[in-house]
């Protein structure tokens, strides 16, 4: 009895299940050329377990060269899709007759589908998908009808790259496998990183699909990760595999991105479940999908306003920080200063940061290290610059702010980041060994090391008052005047006094000669004149010597001769008075006056 009941329940369930089975047939296009492929899809819903392949009608207008089966089960509902790829053979209208599907003893038929085959694309005004549906014959047939759908467009709020990819996919939604590619910006600046995304869309199974990435010229490309996703196109759910790349132009100009290629096998893998289900009666076919090539125009960075701290980074949202591994050290100990720059895009190609020279420190720059990571489809880079600072002497130092600039493409301006200054306390070295050598001049004394050179400290007061010499120089006009007065006085005192004295001697001699009443008085007056005026002592000198002395004083020979005659007459008048021809004292005085006048004039 139990067995009977169980059989009845199973039979009832089978009848119920059979009543839920539906079979539809559709083609991917109803207008095609001789060069096109036609995909006929037979979808069976509600059937599970073992089943036989649908029975195709006679198709004289087509060559069926590929078949594939795909089975999916969602929430207990099983759907099996049989897909046939056909090539048209003749131009004209062709009809795909009813396709029969037998399940649990029941036969289901689809409606015939008409397609038009043209010689070339000009004959096709519009390609539209068509479908037909079928239910169990017992429940009646439904007409196959092409459903024209409006072209879908992507959500305008999507990022440009995703929007572009999605729109390309919508445009090719009548294909089962296709490859699209797009970049985030077709006019990037030099060193600006742009993202290239390549998506392989499919709504049919495939296997063994080697992928060939696009070739590029005049631009650097590196992998930026891969992802998967789905997109509904024309009511069909497509899966896609996405590969992203980072493109960076090093020089301005045109850069080309070649097509990416996927060679895929349709049908099932020989080891697939489906193959095992259906005994491997599936035809495999290798196909190729390619993305369209395109060109980028790399723009040069503006020369105006380029700061000295610009090392080539281009992007938006960079950040910068600086850190010293310690802030208290002894003189001669090393401190590592690390400056980290983070931001979008690729920092590998940027030049290394130049640390400013620090007085009192020896600097040993280390090579910069850059790293990049991909998150949420975006690449971000970190570049770490390190330098080792060795303070030469103790003191409190400030490591000044380090500047680093980048070009922001969104605002088209250069922006400069700078770190916070870092205070460093350096205590005197406690090391007793030979210590460190800063390359300065060798120490002169044992135990003393030259650590480096710096300028001497400030003068904390005003300079002392100028020296006497400066004061003398300041009063130089007064100096000149006083010196001139001094010189005049000395000259006057020196030359004028001589002149006065000689005049006085001459005047005295003249006075005495005018009063002389004897040759002795005349002789004495002349002798005194010679003695005082020319320092010639007549008492101790013979006449010849007197004459020679006169000549030395510049007296002319005629005057010397006249003086000689006078002197001889004076001797005769003094020592042999009464000698004939002897002149009187008055006559001798007159002659003496004349000769003294000549001597006064000629004497040097």
């Amino acid at each position, binding site marked *: 009895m139990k067995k009977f009941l169980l059989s009845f329940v199973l039979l009832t369930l089978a009848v119920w299940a059979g009543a839920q089975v539906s079979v539809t047939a559709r083609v991917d296009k109803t207008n095609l050329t001789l060069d096109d492929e036609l995909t006929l899809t037979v979808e069976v819903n509600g059937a599970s377990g073992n089943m036989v392949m649908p029975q195709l009608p006679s198709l004289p207008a087509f060559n069926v060269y590929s078949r594939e089966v795909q089975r999916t089960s969602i929430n207990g509902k099983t759907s099996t899709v049989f897909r046939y790829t056909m090539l048209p053979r003749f131009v004209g209208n062709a009809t795909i007759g009813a396709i029969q599907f037998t399940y649990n003893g029941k036969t289901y038929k689809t409606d015939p589908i008409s397609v038009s085959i043209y010689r070339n694309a000009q004959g096709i005004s519009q390609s539209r998908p068509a479908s037909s549906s079928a239910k169990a014959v017992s429940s009646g047939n439904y007409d196959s009808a092409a459903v024209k759908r409006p072209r879908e467009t992507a959500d305008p709020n999507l990022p440009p790259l995703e929007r572009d990819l999605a729109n390309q996919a919508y445009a090719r939604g009548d294909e089962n496998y296709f490859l699209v590619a797009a970049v985030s910006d077709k006019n990037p600046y030099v060193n600006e990183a742009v993202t290239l995304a390549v998506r392989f869309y499919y709504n049919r199974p495939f296997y063994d699909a080697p992928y060939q990435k696009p070739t590029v010229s005049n631009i650097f490309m590196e992998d930026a990760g891969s992802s998967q996703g789905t997109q509904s196109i024309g009511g069909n759910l497509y899966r896609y595999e996405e590969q992203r790349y980072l493109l960076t132009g090093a020089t301005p100009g045109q850069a080309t991105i070649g097509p990416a290629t996927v060679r895929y096998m349709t049908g099932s893998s020989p080891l697939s479940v489906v193959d095992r289900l259906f005994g491997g009666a599936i035809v495999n076919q290798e196909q190729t999908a390619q993305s369209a090539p395109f060109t980028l125009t790399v723009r040069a960075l503006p020369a105006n306003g380029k700061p000295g701290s610009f090392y080539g980074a281009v992007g938006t949202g960079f950040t910068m920080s600086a850190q010293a591994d310690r802030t208290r050290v002894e003189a001669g100990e090393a401190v590592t200063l690390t400056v980290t720059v983070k931001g979008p895009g690729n920092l590998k190609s940027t030049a290394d940061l130049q640390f400013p020279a620090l*007085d009192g420190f020896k600097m040993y720059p280390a090579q910069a290290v850059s790293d990049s990571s991909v998150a949420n489809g975006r690449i971000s880079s970190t570049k770490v610059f390190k330098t080792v600072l060795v303070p030469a002497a103790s003191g409190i130092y*400030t490591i000044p702010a380090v500047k680093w600039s980048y070009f922001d493409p969104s605002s088209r301006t250069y922006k400069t980041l700078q770190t916070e200054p870092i205070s460093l306390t350096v205590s005197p070295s406690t090391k007793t060994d030979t210590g460190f050598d800063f390359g300065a001049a060798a120490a002169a004394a044992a135990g003393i090391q030259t650590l480096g*050179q*710096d*300028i*001497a*400290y*400030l*003068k*904390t*007061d*005003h*300079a002392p008052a*100028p*020296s*006497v*010499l*400066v*004061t*003398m*120089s*300041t009063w*130089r006009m007064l*100096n000149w005047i006083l*010196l001139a007065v*001094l*010189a005049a*006085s*000395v*000259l006057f*005192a*020196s030359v004028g006094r001589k002149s006065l004295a000689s005049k006085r001697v001459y005047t005295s001699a003249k006075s005495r000669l005018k009063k002389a009443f004897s040759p002795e008085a005349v002789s004495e007056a002349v002798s005194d004149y010679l003695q005082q005026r020319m320092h010639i002592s007549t008492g101790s000198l013979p006449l010849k010597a007197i004459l020679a002395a006169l000549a030395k004083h510049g007296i002319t020979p005629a005057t010397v001769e006249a003086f000689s005659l006078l002197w001889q007459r004076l001797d005769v008048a003094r020592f042999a008075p009464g000698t004939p021809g002897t002149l009187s004292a008055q006559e001798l005085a007159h002659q003496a006056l004349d000769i003294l006048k000549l001597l006064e004039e000629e004497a040097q």
Partner: protein
Amino acid sequence: MKRILLTVLLLGFAAASWGQTALQQAEGYYREGKFSAALGLYEKELKNTPNDPYVYYNIGNCYFKMGSKGLAAANYYRAFKLAPRDSDIRHNLTLALAAGGERLVPAGVPEVLHKAFFYLSYQEVQGLTFLLLWLFCALGSVWLLKRKFKRVFLTSAVILLLCGGWLYARYTLEQARLAVVAAPVAEVRSGPGANFPASASVPQGHLLTVQDTKDDWYEVIVKSQGLKGWVEKNAVEQI
């Protein structure tokens, strides 16, 4: 009268103490690393004491710490001309010039000789010459009037002559219009205008001799290189 004297004294004391306060404040800024603020105070102080070599020296220190080695060298040079015997000034000037590849003591000249030649400032050499002239005149007077100290007089004449030669040499140097490249780089052009091609670029801290002036341009000779050309006035600092 007493009130006037008291007011004058108080004013003088206030001025002196203000100067001291300003120097102390500037030193405070300098020690804190606020070189720009210290520089501002020293430049204000320079207006009160225009020929103070120490103020020039301190200004040079501020510029040096701010990285302007050319302007630092220019101010050290001004201080050096006023106080050439100050070892700190000489030291800092040597360092600032060395930063620009220049030397205070020309190559081949013994430092001792250089120090002797610049032992006195130009004004001091002038003052010494006057002093010797006075001595010479005094001894000459004695000799003329008394015929005494002839040898001392002649010796003073020789010394005066030597000092006159020293003064002449220093005068020649004083008349040379020295300048220092203050901008990071000064371009030497073949004419006084940006339309003339640049023949050389001279980095900061190099010494120049100004030959001529035309509008905003100096005709200069780069002493260390033997170059001659025109540079923009705002690129150099005349000493």
